[in-house]
């Protein structure tokens, strides 16, 4: 018998060996696998930013100051404008998030992706 044949004959035994792990070991392996997949999932809180979800996106994009602007007289408006420009959300944060999440930037340019996205949105 040559080496290749030997290897081929041995493999089923190795497979059998791999499948004769005890219940406990099997469970622990499965747990390990799930843990690995979990740990890989995006951390929800990045760079101190609040997670964006259906409810909070509005408040992130349009700050309190911006919302309040409609109701202020002009002088206060101008003052608020000055204040707002200092408080601008750092646009680099958005890019940093975009570049470091699981989906690569290509995804966001993909027409299919955008189509699916628009179907999901209410």
């Amino acid at each position: 018998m040559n080496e290749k044949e030997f290897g081929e004959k041995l493999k089923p035994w190795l497979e059998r060996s791999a499948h004769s792990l005890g219940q406990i070991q099997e469970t622990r392996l499965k747990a390990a696998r799930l843990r690995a997949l979990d740990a890989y999932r995006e951390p929800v809180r990045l760079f101190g930013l609040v997670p964006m979800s259906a409810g909070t996106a509005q408040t992130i994009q349009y700050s309190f100051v911006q919302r309040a602007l409609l109701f202020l007289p002009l002088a206060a408006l101008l003052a608020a404008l000055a204040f707002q420009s200092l408080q601008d959300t750092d646009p680099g944060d958005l890019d940093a998030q975009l570049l470091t999440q699981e989906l690569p930037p290509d995804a966001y340019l993909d027409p299919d992706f955008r189509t699916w996205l628009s179907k999901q949105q209410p």
Partner: protein
Amino acid sequence: MAQQAAALIAGAALALALLAAPAAHAYDPSTPRTPWSQLSPQEQRILGPVAQDWDRMPGFQQQRLRSSARRYPSMQPVQRERFENRVRDWSAMTPEQRRAARETFQGFHRLPPDKQHELRERWLRERSGGRGRPPGR
């Protein structure tokens, strides 16, 4: 009276303009450039992948990159790796492409988590199974 009305209208128009422009606003072509040599050693290390292209970039793009690089220290290892791998291709996109990508990204994040998961998994599966070309990381 008319003056006040005009002021109010102007104010309202201004406010509307503000509301229409979300935090991630359009770029300002007049932003001054910073030569590579003026970046701190840390910035140069983090932005290494785009060093060659740096001096040709418009100021607003440089500013944005430096701003995103400030987040690097607080990134986890996997995030750092992704950043390093992707920043060059990202910078090579047109400003319009980047703007479009940001909009889509924000739209994606407005979805509830389970929908995000579904869409993400779907895209990753399609790309690795269906397309066959190496993914752009």
